[in-house]
């Protein structure tokens, strides 16, 4: 069997393990699904009148607008959760077992990221379903929904890379867990929850340049208007940037971990 | 009036019957040793007697108060040092004793005085202002014991007080228990260490799988088992032949460690030559031979069919199941 096929098989097996880990322990699902769903309900119910503000994009409902933000939040938390799980593996010594196996070292990281991407995909499906159940329409139809799901899964991979890098560098689950507030901060400073043009300074300016805003808009556009090439490409570029950052940081952290043991 | 009276005490957890109708009585001023392997029901029994767990059957009274109907009076009369030391790592030793004094209802001045006395008594005055998290295991046990004594209880419950301690710390705890008892405190002590029960307890109850299988003074219990036994160490390939040869001389007992052949001999050392002849005739090469007088482990074997010490060695290699 070729090296590539072996690596793919290893990545698949480790990815499947990370998915099984999460779904077998409901307390790991709740931050990814329950908390963002609760926040979606509250924010939609509480700030829904915002659609009447001048300058608000034409949408069917505030729920339709918010779905992308909820998916992003869930995706970020999945990335954080994946980082925590990776750090727990390091603390328990499980990664040592993997390092001692005749597998490409980076496959270990990719396996974890594959699991995180799958969780991101689950989150996307969950919120699209919630939206449909509660009356939101996906203007881009099935292709639009698939695009949203693909972008979220890719984002989860990207953000997961940063989580994995932090886990590899620190080797501590509590350090990765301590980043949870940062997830919220980064999301609030983007257009995840409200149109960037209607945000208050300095949040508005920060959101304008925040890469997450480009991803959110890329995910949102197929839902509220239909597939748009510009938004999609901007989202892909932002994701690619984060992927590269995540890969570089992970590779360095992996080298560091292998050196210090 | 007995310090502790138990009649038909039971505790079930769903289908699992952890304690199956035990009866015992502890006289005022006695040290009672409750001996058994992990999972036997020792800690469950202690938790019922200290009102931390409700019995599902039977009755028990401590210091003259029913553990169910007069739980608060029981708590006011007892001191407890549980299997887990239950200390707060952020508190200093002195703060912990003073908190315990407050919980027991002592006024602040009396609590401060008592803290000084007890810390001195257990040899922790020098570490009184240090946080408990920095204490060694032995120090934590001594602090736990001091906390249990803050209100001069009538009955003291010690649940495996020396588990995990080094021999020196263990001896220190033993001395303290003896001193307490000399002062009139009744002590109910659970342990999985034979030597501890032998050394400290005036009466011993042996529990296995939730039932008391033997009760009495250590000497009386050992006397019941009666006979000394011979311990033989032979090569692994010769074990079966050795057991066959020994069976001609006396009663072969369950092997110890899976390697040592044990033979009960009615006449003690007088039977040794017969044992040696039988082994010689069978062509068994013996690495060592020892005559051993009865221990509480022998009592345990006689009552349960297996060694308590074998269980200890197995458990020390793996996870400890709660008693």
């Amino acid at each position, binding site marked *: 069997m070729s090296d590539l096929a072996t690596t793919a098989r290893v990545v698949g097996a480790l990815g499947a393990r990370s998915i099984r880990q999460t779904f077998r322990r409901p*307390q790991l699902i709740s931050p990814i699904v329950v908390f963002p769903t609760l926040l979606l309900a509250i924010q939609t*119910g509480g700030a829904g009148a915002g659609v009447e503000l001048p300058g608000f994009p034409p949408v069917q409902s505030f729920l339709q607008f918010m779905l992308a933000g909820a998916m992003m939040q869930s995706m970020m938390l999945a990335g954080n959760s994946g980082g925590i799980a990776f750090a727990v593996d390091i603390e328990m010594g499980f990664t040592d077992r993997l390092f001692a196996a005749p597998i490409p070292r980076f496959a270990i990281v990719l396996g974890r990221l594959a699991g995180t991407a799958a969780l991101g995909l689950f989150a996307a499906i969950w919120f699209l379903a919630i939206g449909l159940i509660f009356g939101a329409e996906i203007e881009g139809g099935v292709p639009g929904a698939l695009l949203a799901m693909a972008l979220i899964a890719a984002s989860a991979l990207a953000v997961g890379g940063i989580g994995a890098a932090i886990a590899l560098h620190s080797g501590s689950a509590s350090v990765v867990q301590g980043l949870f507030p940062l997830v919220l901060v980064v999301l609030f400073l983007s257009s995840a*929850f409200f149109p960037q043009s209607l*945000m*208050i300074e300095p*949040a508005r300016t920060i959101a304008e340049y925040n890469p997450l805003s480009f991803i959110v808009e890329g995910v949102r556009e197929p839902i509220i208007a239909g597939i748009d090439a510009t938004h999609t490409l901007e989202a892909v570029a932002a994701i690619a940037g984060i992927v590269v950052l995540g890969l570089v940081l992970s590779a360095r952290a992996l080298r560091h971990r292998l050196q210090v043991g | 009036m007995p310090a502790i009276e138990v009649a038909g005490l039971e505790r079930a957890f769903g289908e699992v019957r952890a304690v199956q109708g035990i009866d015992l009585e502890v006289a005022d001023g006695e040290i009672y040793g409750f001996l058994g392997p992990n999972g036997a029901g020792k800690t469950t029994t202690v938790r019922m007697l200290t009102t931390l767990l409700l019995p599902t059957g039977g009755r028990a009274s401590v210091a003259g108060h029913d553990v169910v109907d007069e739980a608060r009076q029981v708590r006011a009369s007892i001191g*407890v040092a549980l299997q887990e030391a239950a200390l*707060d790592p952020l508190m200093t030793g002195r703060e912990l004793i003073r908190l315990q004094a407050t919980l027991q209802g*002592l006024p602040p001045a*009396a609590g401060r005085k008592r803290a000084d006395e007890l810390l001195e008594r257990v040899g922790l005055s020098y570490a009184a202002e240090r946080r408990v998290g920095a204490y060694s295991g032995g120090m934590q046990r001594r602090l736990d014991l001091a906390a249990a004594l803050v209100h001069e209880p009538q009955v003291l419950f010690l649940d495996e007080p020396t588990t995990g301690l080094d021999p020196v710390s263990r001896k220190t705890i033993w001395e303290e228990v003896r001193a307490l008892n000399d002062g009139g405190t009744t002590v109910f002590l659970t342990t999985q260490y034979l030597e501890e029960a032998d050394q400290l307890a005036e009466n011993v109850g042996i529990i296995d799988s939730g039932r008391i299988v033997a009760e009495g003074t250590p000497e009386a219990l050992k006397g019941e088992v009666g006979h000394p036994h011979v311990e033989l160490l032979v090569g692994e390939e010769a074990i079966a032949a050795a057991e066959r040869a020994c069976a001609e001389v006396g009663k072969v007992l369950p092997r110890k460690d899976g390697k040592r052949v044990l033979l009960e001999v009615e006449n003690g050392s007088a039977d040794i030559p017969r044992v040696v002849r039988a082994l010689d005739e069978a062509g068994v090469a013996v690495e060592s031979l020892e005559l051993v007088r009865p221990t509480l482990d022998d009592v345990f074997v006689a009552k349960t069919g297996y060694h308590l010490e074998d269980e200890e060695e197995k458990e020390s290699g793996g996870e400890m199941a709660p008693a």
Partner: protein
Amino acid sequence: MEAAANTLATPAWRTNLATILALMARAKNELVRVPGAAIPGVLAPTIFFLGLNGVFGALTQLRGFEIDSYESFIVPVSMLQGAGFTGAAAGVNLARDYEQGWVDRLLVSPAPRWVLLAGNVLAASARAFIPATFVLAIAFALGAQWPGLDGLAVCYLMVAATAAVAACWGSMLALRFKSQSAAPLMQAGMMALVLLTPAYAPLALLQPWLESVASVNPLTEVVEAARQGFVGSVSWSDTWPGIVALAGLLAVFGALALREMRRTNV
């Protein structure tokens, strides 16, 4: 038997009070002796305050919003959120104490169960002042309206009592599940209670389903009572419903928590 004699001579109320104060003193150790322990409790409501203000601040342009300053509108909610987090954290700490055997030490003492619970709950109430004051300071820095001393007093009363309610809720779950894994339920429950109110916008501007829920949620009265000084003037008619709501919630959750405390030996 001097110690035993001392115990009998002390009136019960004095012993109970001393025990409550001693447990509160122990609870403060985590803040004082663990570096950074106070940070998570302060960070969460602060992030929410700044985030929500930055994201939804334009809502004040809607008809029905009688105030221009979204900071003033939302700061009481963030203070109450902080109270909710603090109280839930008290539940998590109790679960941790249970797992480590510390609760056994309390349960085996003759102190009444309600006294043991009160120590934990009152400690949470006192601790809630920390995130509340931090968020308030930031809100003032961003231009929130001064609520007056009466408005401030009412707001802090609501914060302290909400923290007590949250601590009862958290304690109930801690003693029911005997595990820190119940922590998300403790936190999410309180978050939902505080935010399913006119938290983000006045009642009339909420979506119909949330307006219905908020109308029956006792915390709505608490939010309105806490907010009144920041958006207008303080009146007794806007204050007493919040007090009654909190008294009711304390009675219910307190009773449930006490029940669980009494059932730890079942």
